[in-house]
């Protein structure tokens, strides 16, 4: 397998993984927008985390920002897989920012809220996987 083909496969896998993350973030966004996370009756492990003040930035649900980030990753990875060089340069900072923000959200859950939302942990795993995939792309082939 050539390096170029290997790189294309990695970007394609990153695109597929980001779609899974997008689905998760879309679900959480809907929960936040319907107010379900502020109540009992929805996902019992979500409302403590997603109903907290850390779940919104300037009134916008963090999950919605996450959905936009996953969509950006999907778009960038898809274009990168088709050979668009600019998409590759965009992909790295977006996933880097997601990685750092995910670390912050894990810290909030573990040390400030003392509660874990399983959808958030799933999203964190997806972000770590995306970061791993981007790191695995052969550096010497980057244009």
């Amino acid at each position, binding site marked *: 397998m050539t390096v170029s083909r290997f790189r294309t496969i990695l970007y394609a896998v990153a695109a597929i993984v980001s*779609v899974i993350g*997008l689905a998760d973030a879309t679900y959480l966004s809907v929960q936040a927008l319907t*107010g379900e996370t*502020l*109540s*009992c009756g929805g996902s019992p492990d979500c409302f403590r985390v997603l109903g907290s003040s850390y779940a919104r930035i300037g009134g916008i649900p963090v999950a919605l920002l996450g959905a936009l980030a996953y969509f950006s990753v*999907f778009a960038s990875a*898809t274009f990168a897989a*088709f050979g668009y060089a600019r998409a590759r340069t965009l992909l790295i900072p977006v996933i880097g920012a997601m990685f750092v923000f995910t670390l912050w959200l894990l810290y909030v859950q573990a040390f400030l809220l003392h509660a874990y939302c399983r959808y958030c942990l799933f999203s964190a795993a997806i972000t770590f996987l995306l970061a791993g995939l981007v790191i695995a792309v052969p550096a010497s082939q980057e244009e």
Partner: protein
Amino acid sequence: MPVNNDTMTNDRDVASAIPASCFLIRHLDFVITNAASSTTPAPSLLRCSPHLTIQSLRRSFWLFRHLMKRYLPFLLVAAVALAAFGSGAVLYRAKRPQLLAIPETRNLTGKSGTESMHIRGNPDAPVTLEEFGDFQCPPCSSFAGFIEELLKQYDSRLRIVFRNFPLPAHEHAREAALAAEAAGMQGRFWEMHDVLYREQAVWSKAPNARELFESYAGTIGLNLDQFRKDMDSEKAKERVDSDHALGDSLGVKFTPTLYINNQPVEPKDKNPEGVRAAINAALARKSQS
């Protein structure tokens, strides 16, 4: 250059099987190869030989692949954007609670018979905040603290009504509702309401919450024997069931669900600012009418 006669024969067989598309393919071939030249005459149906058609097919396939490689990422991104937005919209419509307004004709004077009606604040207040709550629900516990603030802020202009809506997911919620109703039968509903929310973290995890409820009953000065009897009474059960049935009929699914002057509070307004704004709006409407 050697010629593969078998391949040529097969090509002709394939071409002769699709005579109807012959002219179209030839025309496409013409468009591809002579796009820049407007003087080249268009191909005629008579010039459409089977061998040329195969070449055109191959050329068309190449063009298709080329176009796909160029436009497929755009198509994929657009399709995923559409799918994410569409599924989100469908999910939002499905999950959004469709709450009905409380009928204006319903009597709000107090508890009678099997109906449980617990009022706090001025009974003749112009604004009524009615809550469907679950004693084991943490957001309801937070909201109970906020109710105290509201009563201080709005004083005689606001009354609070509490409705039991124990959720099946909460192990001790129904028993807690029965304890509150039993306390209410001795005139101490709100005292039990407050202690249940204050001690929620303790009894929620206790294997035998009833023992704790009985200790709370002692703390707020209830007759314990009567309290035990009332907790097991049909009247207490009917009151809890009556509240739950009312909530079900209005489309209540989550707790706390709030009504202000019989109108449901939107989920996005279920926060201190939103509730205050809704109360102020209800007061303004009352002062106008």
